[in-house]
């Protein structure tokens, strides 16, 4: 990143390649819509590049990157929320790519008569998990993703999310407990949890 700060374009390209998959996956989880994940990831990289001169040597790049990513996701959610409020007045929004609990709920409802063995196959199981994750609060999702997939310590997560370590600990506890409780009926008996149906 220090090379990027000094306007080394090659170094920036290397950073994009290294972090693109992780960032897109994070945006899939914490972003307001899955179909916007790649756009939000690109937006994040653009902000990284714009802010490169403010990067301080010694700081962990991933921490800094995910801080920016969290901001981008929050801003996108706010922006979409405002647009949704406006568009809802006149016409229903075209729901080409329903995201979050709504999608999962729709899928689950359609499959409510199916056996769990069928549900757990393929993308459907992933959709259940994703719906469960999306049922968590935004901060829990963020903390969960950073802990589970980025292997960041509580301290690093706290720095990325501008929280205390204790707060991160609570967040992750709630996230795990909530996730367990949401998924448990499905894991145990193949029953679609009500949290992902609503």
């Amino acid at each position, binding site marked *: 990143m220090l090379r990027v700060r000094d306007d080394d374009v090659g170094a920036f390209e290397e950073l994009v390649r290294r972090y693109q998959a992780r960032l897109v996956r994070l945006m899939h989880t914490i972003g307001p819509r899955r179909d916007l994940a790649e756009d939000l990831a690109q937006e994040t990289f653009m902000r990284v590049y714009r802010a490169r001169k403010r990067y301080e040597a010694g700081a962990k790049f991933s921490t800094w990157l995910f801080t920016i990513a969290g901001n981008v996701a929050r801003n996108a959610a706010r922006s979409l929320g405002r647009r949704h409020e406006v568009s809802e007045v006149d016409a229903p929004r075209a729901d080409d790519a329903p995201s979050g609990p709504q999608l999962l709920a729709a899928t689950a409802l359609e499959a409510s008569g199916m056996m769990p063995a069928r549900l757990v196959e393929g993308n459907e199981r992933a959709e259940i998990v994703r719906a469960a994750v999306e049922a968590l609060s935004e901060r*829990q999702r963020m903390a969960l993703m950073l802990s589970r997939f980025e292997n960041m310590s509580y301290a690093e997560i706290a720095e990325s999310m501008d929280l205390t370590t204790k707060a991160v600990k609570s967040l992750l*506890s709630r996230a795990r407990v909530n996730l367990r409780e949401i998924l448990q009926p499905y894991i145990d008996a193949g029953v679609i949890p009500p949290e992902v149906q609503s």
Partner: protein
Amino acid sequence: MSSIATADGVPVDPDDELLVAYLDGELDAQAENDLMTRLLDDQTLNQRLQRLQEGWEWLDELPDVTPDEKWVETTLELVVADVVKTQRQGSSVWSRYRWPLTILASCVAGVLVSLWVVSSIKSNEYRQQLIDLALAESLDAYLDGSDVTLMRQLVADPAWRKMIAMSREVGELPDVTPTVVADATLEERERMIASMSLEDRARLASRYERFARLGTPRRESVRKTAAAVAQQADAQSLLETMQAYAAWMENLPTELRDQIESENAKVQREAIKKAISVTQSSNRKRSRDQLDDETVERIYFVLQEILQQRLDDRELATTKHVDAVKRLAGHRNFEPYAIFGIVYSGFQRSGRGPPFGLRSLPGPGPGPGGRERPPSLRSDELEQIRAILPDYALDRMDVLSEGDSMAETFAVRSLILRSWAEETAWRKMPKNGRQESTLLDRYNELSPEERDRIDLLPPIDMIKRITRSRGRYP
């Protein structure tokens, strides 16, 4: 509606928190050991741990994102586009008004620079003018008297000093004019110039214009001369000598000037000697022309006495001269003519001649036709004239006749007294024609050659020449 409280603010069971921390590896060794002990003893807690872990592991079901080369390229393109856009946005105002602003800024800068340059140049020019004004004040001195060695030689020459004093006495040379501008500091000069009379200012301006018209090399030469003079211990007296020299040279014939400026020391010496003699002669003539009425009356009174004395003494030549004059001019008006005859009896030697109508009068000694002329004024008679002169005329006489020796002084004094007597006789002549005839009459009396020469002169010189040519300089 969810039955699970997913909100961040909902309290978490401390055991769940402990278990999650354990799973995340965030417990210290002691807490971890304590938990391990509990887990061994508490089956329920153990199950809770497994469920927490199981739910965590289900996250692996989330699909991986495959690196996409095209996405990387797109991202880089977006970043580049963003950078370009940002730069454009950052400079949009500047871009829009770049040329007008650049031109405006250039104009303003140009004007400011020009003003500064003009101001600086004017300031420097003004300062240089003040410096040069001091030089212009004595311009002729610096131009003609640049040879400091020659100036020192002249100062050491008594004849030159006397000639200069005499020239000043008769007004042939101006008195020493103290420098005004040169003596003031640069800061004082402006005020000094403002306080000068209009005439002095005009004179100074004229000299400055003359200085400005000189070529650059000559101006620099003048500046160098002035600097050299200023470094001399006797700078002021040296400058006065230079001024006198310049004024003196101005009245000398060109040929003589060239000789004085010759690099041949002998030629220069002889030329200076000759020039001094010429100037002295001119001074004497000038002193004669400047005689005032009081002096003329006194001299004429003495000349009458001298004539009467000669007649009383029955001096033969004078008696014959008077008889001849009486026959020509009559008994009543003979005296001026008789005196004129005595005073001008030596005109052939001095190059002077009697006025018109008197050329037939007898001169001293055997003259034309064998007639006797009256003797010219004798030394004792000249002394009689000197004795009766007014004090101021005597003072002038002393200045004009001062010589290196008594003999020289006496000889010069005789010359001056004789010329004054001539002037007196001339002025006392009735109908001498000067007042009665017009300038045109006098012009017409001139020879054609003389008229041709006069025609080329400036009006003032023409008048002077016509006036002079009237009999006095045949």
